[in-house]
């Protein structure tokens, strides 16, 4: 006992906690500034639309909050490896650790505060960004609060997207053009299986379900092109189910829409009336034609889902 108490090791120990705290605070301040101001503006999906810009902002905030946590773990890890490394031949156990109420309370309060603050932050962000570009179903909670909205219906079908513009006579085209600074309401649906409309640079993503109108909002903020992909595995050519959209000036959009409406007038005439969803098993006129011709099956029938070979 006398030998043990005479060991002066404890007195020589530096203040590890203070060292770690100072190092962590300095690194965190530098790291947070770099993450938010240097890396942040380059985070996906960019700032082409209101929803994309807000998604980028959210990611910047979350990445900035995560930075001190990540640095804390790494700094402690590196410090422990450097200064608390076991010496050769030392096989003794470390000191026993007992409960520390102060540390436990600090941990619980800090993590609870962060999680609850993020919950509030996320809700506010959903509210102020009209759903952050995500599909909100047929009755969206978060709306733009203005009637000056461009309606664009997105129709998925194996394996292509088409777009209907009900405010321009209901023409339907494979081209997607949008006006700058105009709130857009996407009404997303499908004619067959489940697809997912993902306008990447616009920060818009909404499932396309048959028989369902899934609404998403955004406001384009920069001109240019954006990619539209299907993000729901939907069959053989799922990987090829993509196209490109364009954000143009309001005047250019008006010119394009009016020109396309006239150009596609003959096609629009044969389309079903604009509807938020379409029943793919209903072909009103053709059923009559089929009956008159007495055609069924491969001789010209329309294959109803009521007669599937597989579920």
């Amino acid at each position, binding site marked *: 006992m006398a030998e043990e108490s005479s060991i002066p090791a404890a007195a020589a120990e530096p203040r590890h906690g203070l060292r770690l705290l100072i190092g962590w605070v300095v690194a965190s301040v530098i790291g947070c500034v770099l993450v938010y101001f240097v890396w942040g503006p380059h985070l996906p999906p960019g700032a082409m639309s209101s929803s994309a810009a807000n998604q980028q902002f959210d990611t910047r905030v979350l990445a900035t909050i995560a930075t001190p946590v990540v640095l804390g773990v790494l700094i402690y890890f590196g410090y422990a490896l450097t200064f608390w490394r076991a010496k050769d031949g030392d096989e003794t156990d470390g000191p026993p650790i007992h409960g520390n109420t102060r540390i436990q309370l600090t941990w619980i309060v800090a993590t609870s505060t962060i999680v609850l603050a993020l919950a509030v932050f996320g809700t506010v962000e959903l509210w102020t960004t009209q759903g952050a570009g995500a599909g909100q179903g047929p009755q969206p909670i978060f709306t733009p609060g203005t009637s000056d909205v461009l309606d664009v219906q997105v129709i998925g079908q194996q394996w292509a997207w088409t777009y209907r513009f009900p405010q321009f006579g209901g023409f339907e085209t494979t081209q997607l053009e949008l006006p700058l600074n105009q709130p857009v309401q996407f009404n997303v649906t499908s004619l067959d299986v489940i697809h997912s409309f993902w306008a990447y640079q616009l920060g818009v993503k909404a499932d396309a379900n048959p028989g369902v109108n899934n609404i998403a909002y955004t406001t384009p903020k920069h001109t240019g092109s954006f990619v539209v992909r299907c993000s729901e595995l939907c069959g053989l050519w799922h990987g090829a189910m993509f196209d490109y959209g364009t954000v143009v000036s309001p005047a250019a959009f008006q010119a394009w829409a009016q020109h396309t409406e006239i150009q*596609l007038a003959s096609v629009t005439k044969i389309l079903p009336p604009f509807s938020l969803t379409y029943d*793919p098993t209903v*072909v009103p006129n053709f059923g009559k034609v089929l009956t008159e011709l007495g055609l069924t099956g*491969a001789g010209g029938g329309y*294959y109803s889902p009521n007669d599937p070979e597989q579920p």
Partner: protein
Amino acid sequence: MSLRARVTTLLVAFAAVSAVVIFVAVHFILASPPVVDYTSSASGGQVNVVMQTDPQNTVTSQPDWVSYFIQNPQTKQWVHTTYFKVPAGTKVNMTIYGYDGCTPLRNPVWGQVTGTTGGVAYNDGAPYSLLNSWSGCNVQHTFSMAGLGINVPIASPTTLKENSNLCGTSPCTSGPHQVVTFSFRTPAVGGTFRWQCIVPCGLGYVDGNGGPMATPGYMSGQMEVQA
């Protein structure tokens, strides 16, 4: 069981499982239909590609599946495939013998002809730019290649008599049919462009989407453009 026997059993089991995995990979995952090569038959900046649609195919294990066939430019034999190769920067003159009966499009917007020279196709020589498959018996399949913006509804026989007496043996050489022709240009650079029929023509599958619609070599294929 001796150690030798146990090791031998383990190795045999491993080999058997490996063989099954390789078989599945080669025959089901990596397998693709044959490619009909039109590059050597191009001349004067043009190439003639000939296909046919059949109401069934009697050359595979799925005889009730509708199918495209492509004609070999050298032998003139019909090949059960939907894969073909053409040169880049070339005018492709397509001829499709449509032997199948009519089926309405799920979305009539695909009844318009797009992406072809002049925005038209020809049905037995008569030009058309739009077919309304909901108003009559007039569309059997489509040739739709999204990558090049091409969509051509393939005209079908229109009468009950014709639709009731479709060709019964593949590849079809006789029976009611329409001859649809159109042209388009391949891009200047090489690439692979997928195409499909967009009519829900998979008889007996949910919404007509499965079977031949979802299997390369029947109603889906690809065009290789050789630079």
